[in-house]
């Protein structure tokens, strides 16, 4: 029987997930053991998050915490807030339908996605050293609960007055945009960036299509497995009715149909986990890229607005010098503040631009690797399934030969 071995084994690098650098130990994280906690309507799934720090010499101690989905959401949102410009790894979706929230398949899909989420963060050069990540991975239960509560409460008021102004301005620009309609004069006009935006848009369409088709394939393959099973049953009954060598032949046919039906169902499950869901994850990654684009656009508008506001204030200051000298001091202060804010906004915008460029390059590398692996695994699984199918049916042939010759014998003897 042919066995197709995962080619990933070939590409294995020693030392685990990341090569530890001299200054920074790397993290090996896994999300396992989903457990249902709580009662009734308030029940939820908790996951075991295990972290190992890996130095160049040895593996450090393992730290284990228990987290639930909303905790992951918290971490994700914090990272989005603090690291504008970076493509934050996406979370799996909130469950849409109550009914499936606790189905084994849904839980497993989610567990894998959460696992991937943390792994991606841990392998990101900037994100891996995030304080929030550290808290998430290491804080004990009570500490964690306290932290979350504190931070959640404080998050609204944590912002400086300057930030408040920012928020206001952001709302303002949003509203203005809406009022003015689609015609936003405050947009970047970088042709390179335009190309990138266009690329990301189209890529999202393509990957969505691929994900849609792969999901349909999973479904159809399950249906085929089901149909084969029913066929096997019907054929076996028919065999019982017929009897003789023909009956045997039908029984064998039914038997192999059963065997294959099981294989198909298993492979469909495989296909879902190792093919469809990873592709779906990439669709989500692209969505996180698009979120960053929104951030960038906002940052651009903000710095534009503040820059203009600053210029305006400067002009007014000159006017005031002539008209209202008593107000000059106050105005000068405002102008200085405005300049600071404007500079800050510009710096933030440029940060985002710089980070985005880096991230896009990294994204391309990762995409090629990840999707390459996904596609390869897909091919491998298909090859295995086809080989198994051929094997299963082939075992019938000698049996069929026997039945045919038996039948011929019976005919000859009856004549």
């Amino acid at each position, binding site marked *: 029987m042919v066995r197709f071995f995962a080619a990933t084994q070939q590409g294995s690098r020693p030392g685990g997930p990341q090569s530890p650098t001299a200054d920074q130990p790397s993290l090996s994280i896994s999300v396992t053991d989903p457990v249902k906690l709580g009662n009734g309507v308030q029940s939820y799934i908790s996951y075991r998050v295990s972290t190992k720090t890996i130095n160049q010499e040895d593996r450090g101690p393992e730290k284990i915490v228990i987290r639930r989905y909303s905790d992951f959401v918290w971490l994700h949102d914090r990272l989005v807030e603090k690291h504008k410009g970076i493509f934050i790894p996406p979370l799996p979706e909130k469950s849409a339908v109550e009914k499936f929230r606790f189905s084994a398949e849904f839980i497993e899909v989610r567990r894998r996605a959460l696992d991937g989420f943390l792994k991606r963060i841990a392998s990101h050069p900037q994100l891996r050293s995030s304080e929030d990540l550290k808290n998430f991975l290491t804080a004990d239960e009570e500490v964690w609960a306290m932290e979350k509560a504190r931070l959640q409460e404080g998050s609204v008021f944590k912002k400086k007055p300057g930030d408040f102004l920012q928020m206001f301005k952001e709302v303002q620009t949003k509203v203005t945009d809406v009022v003015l309609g689609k015609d936003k004069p405050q947009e970047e006009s970088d042709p390179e960036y335009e190309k990138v935006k266009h690329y990301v848009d189209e890529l999202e369409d393509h990957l969505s299509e691929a994900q849609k088709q792969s999901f349909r394939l999973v479904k159809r393959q399950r249906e085929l497995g089901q149909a084969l099973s*029913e066929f096997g049953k019907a054929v076996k009954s028919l065999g019982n009715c017929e009897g*003789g060598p*023909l009956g045997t032949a039908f029984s064998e046919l039914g038997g192999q149909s059963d065997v294959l039906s099981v294989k198909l169902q298993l492979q469909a499950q495989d296909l879902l986990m190792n093919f469809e869901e*990873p592709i779906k994850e990439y669709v989500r990654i692209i969505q996180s890229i698009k979120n960053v684009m929104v951030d960038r656009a906002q940052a651009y508008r903000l710095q534009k607005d503040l820059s203009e506001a600053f210029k305006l204030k400067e002009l007014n200051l000159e006017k005031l010098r002539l008209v209202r000298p008593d107000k000059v001091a106050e105005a000068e202060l405002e102008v200085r503040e405005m300049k600071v804010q404007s500079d800050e906004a510009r710096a933030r915008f440029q940060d985002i631009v710089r980070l985005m460029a880096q991230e896009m390059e990294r994204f391309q590398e990762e995409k090629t*690797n990840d999707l390459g692996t996904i596609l390869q695994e897909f091919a491998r699984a298909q090859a295995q399934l*086809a080989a198994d199918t051929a094997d299963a049916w082939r075992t019938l042939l000698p049996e069929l030969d026997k039945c045919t010759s038996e039948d011929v014998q019976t005919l000859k003897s009856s004549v």
Partner: protein
Amino acid sequence: MMSSEDDDSQEARLFTSTDAMESLVLDQTPISHPFLSNSDYRSAMSASTPLDESNHPLASPPKHDLSQRSFRDSNRKSFQDSPNSSSSRRSLREADLVEPPSYADAIFTPHMGDASSMSENGREVGSSSSSSIPYSPTYTDTLVITVTQPQKSQEPGTSLVPGGSSYVTYLITTRTNIREYQGTEFSVRRRFRDVVTLADRLADAYRGYFIPPRPDKSIVESQVMQKAEFIEQRRLALEKYLSRLAAHPVLRRSNELRLFLQFQGKLPLTPNTDIASRMLDGAVNLPRQLFGESSSLIPPQEASQPAKGGRDLVRLFKELKQSVTNDWGGVKPAIVEEDRAFLEKKEKLQDLQKQLGDASQQAEALVKAQQEVGEVMGELGLAFIKIAKFETEEAATDAQRVHANNTKRVGTATIKASRFHREANVQSVKHLDQLHEYLGLMQALHAAYADRSNALLTVQTLMTDLEANKLKVEKLHQAASKFFGVDKNRERKIEELKEVVKVNEAARDSAQQEYDRIKERNRTELERLEKDRRKDFLNMIRGFVMTQVGYAEKISNVWASVVEESANGLSGKSLDTTSSGSSTPNCLGPVQWMIAGPRGI
């Protein structure tokens, strides 16, 4: 009953025929490939759902190039006519993006090769047919029938319907070397009504045989009648029906069939007159029969015919009374000995029919599911190809180019696999169709058994009649002996009754003969059915399994080469990224762990 050469050649014919079928299918370019959509599948399986479909049993006679061509034509036609324009668009785009694979080494698989080398008589029979009945008994003489060229025709206005009503005629072409048919190749135009007539005549003349049921009449409005799809379905159904008749050892030699196939002009088979006039006839006869003006007997020659509605009302009543007597356990007539054995067999056959129906239904579901998988794969492959094209166009980094290559490779393979899936399905349909065929044959069997029951009933009725009349004679004799002297009237009556008894006896004998004849036909037909069914089903299973094996191997090869190629690509790539020293950590990202899953942990 069939010649012994059938046994040996059957196997050979199967494999060579599947070879022929496969090379037939594979020779076609992707565009003209019979892209089985749901509607095409339906037409391949012929008309209505399998269970109520009057599908036909047994095999078709060997077909030659004429039918091969018509198979392609019919499929191409249905492909063009079908509303599934998306599939045609799709296959065209596939052809654009993917080179048609070379089928140079198209012979199935090594295993298939072994199998066909097993048989000695490699008698090649091009057995692909539009009727898709791959298994054929061989006769030394040939009778090949094809139905083509449906044409609309106008009936001259009848008094009831203003204007003319239109109908469709079909060109029935026959090729044969049977001596009774004068000529070797000829054609006639017939309409569906003629086929109904043919079927009715055969049912009358060949009671007791398993006569293939004809295609259903359809109670649809004339709008639907005109639709191309309906006409195509009917054309196919007609061809199947006539081919099955041609495959029946007795019916193929019938005058009725010959006239139908050969007689130019209006069909000389007298159709049944409509119910109304028959009732009238019956009504006319009834008073005469009731008041004894003509003999209330069934004349001998008519005794061998079943009681027809209308004409023989009295006879019908009598036979009805008889059957009620039988059912209610009255004095059973003598002829019941082997009833029990017969009934047992009948029960077994009922069971078989049920199982056959189930299996046929599940087979259809299976084929449909396989088709869906094939189609989805095609869409998936296309999505990958599009991605590859997109990434190639937008390639700003090397990574993208590599990615584009990977994706293209897998996309191409997926499309190939999809094509194989669908081809495998086309072949599977041909094999599994045998289930449908034999299911249809059960209908014929029921009809044949009904013939038998009717004939028995006739005999029993006549016997009851006879007993009654004999009793009358007896009574009159007794009455006569009691009185002194000769009663002229009574004497005459006794003489008359004696005549009646004689005719009655003759009728009963005739009916008995007919019953025996039908019984014998039932028996031989059943034997033939059992034998054919066993052989055909074994071949079906074998053919189906080999199809699956062959195509699974092909699909596996496609994927195996992808795995190999990309493995080489991957190891080459990991070397590159090591040296490039990019900011990305390594080749194995989180995805590997996602895929490795529990194994990895």
